[in-house]
């Protein structure tokens, strides 16, 4: 069984758990799944084993705490440490696929922006390749950092009771800083690199074609699940 099938089966089987046991198991599941460095296949096989065990133990009237212990974090950390890591090649491939998708979305957005601006006022359509690449790197870096922080935050929420107001405030600050960074940092970059005169339509078309090709590749090879 591959990871995808295991996840499906896991969703089905989890319904057999009692409410308390499901709550405990769900926390374990979130904690292990958000550990991005481990092999997905191995992690799902382990989660299925733990679920099977808990269902069997539950039939004998045992609680999840009795089976896996009171300290969920220590227990899961111990298992994550032993799990094989995801091969670097497949992680790199996965990340570059996502980044490419992000790049084409950015191209579409700025293409539409350019067209609108062009109709409102007659502005130049000059693109500096160097500037465009640096802008992309900045946006990609900010988004990657946000994803990393959110995953850590979800992991922490599993074993720590969080303060909702504080969390909301932090999330707001994070989004604000990220957006501000994405908008204003690129403006600081001086124009450099090869110059091309592109119309907004070319931008839009390139972005759309790339995105369609990526979607097609994804539906065929299921890169993101």
């Amino acid at each position, binding site marked *: 069984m591959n990871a995808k099938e295991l996840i499906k089966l896991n969703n089905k089987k989890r319904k057999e758990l009692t409410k308390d046991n499901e709550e405990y198991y769900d926390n374990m599941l979130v904690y292990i799944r958000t550990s991005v460095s481990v092999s997905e296949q191995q992690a799902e*096989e382990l989660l299925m*084993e*733990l679920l099977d*065990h808990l269902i069997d*133990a539950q039939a004998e009237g045992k609680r999840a705490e009795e089976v*896996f*212990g009171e300290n969920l974090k220590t227990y899961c950390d111990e298992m994550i440490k*032993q799990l*094989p890591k995801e091969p670097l090649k497949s992680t790199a491939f996965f990340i570059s696929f996502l980044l490419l998708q992000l790049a084409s979305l950015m191209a579409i957005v700025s293409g539409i922006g350019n067209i609108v601006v062009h109709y409102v006022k007659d502005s130049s359509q000059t693109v500096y390749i160097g500037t465009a690449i640096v802008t992309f790197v900045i946006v990609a870096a900010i988004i990657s950092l946000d994803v990393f922080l959110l995953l850590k935050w979800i992991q922490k929420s599993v074993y720590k009771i969080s303060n909702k107001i504080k969390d909301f405030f932090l999330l707001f600050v994070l989004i604000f800083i990220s957006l501000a960074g994405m908008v204003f940092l690129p403006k600081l970059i001086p124009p450099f690199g090869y110059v091309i005169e592109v119309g907004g339509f070319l931008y839009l078309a390139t972005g759309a074609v790339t995105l369609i090709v990526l979607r097609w590749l994804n539906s065929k090879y299921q890169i993101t699940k």
Partner: protein
Amino acid sequence: MSLRSQLLKGILEGCILSIIQKETVYGYELSQKLQQYGLNDVSEGSIYPILLRLQKEGLIKGEMKASPSGPKRKYYHLTASGESALCEIQEEWINIQNPVDKLLNRSFYDER
């Protein structure tokens, strides 16, 4: 980790290898077997980190197989290096079993 729990872990590893050598088992079965032998203090869940480590070291291998009760389970069996590791543990155990027993139960022997 304290020295005491490390010691226990090492011994538990040997016990798990020994059970798996006799027959292929899945996780829940393994925990039941350990309890049947009287190791009631071992919490059921603690076998999974050990099973993962033994797999990482290549001493055991897990395979998904249909179980008699129906659903597929991950059954574990010993590898060749698992066999030799178990032999080593058994030898070491025989060497220390008697002296440790005498030392730790000294007061018990002295009273008699």
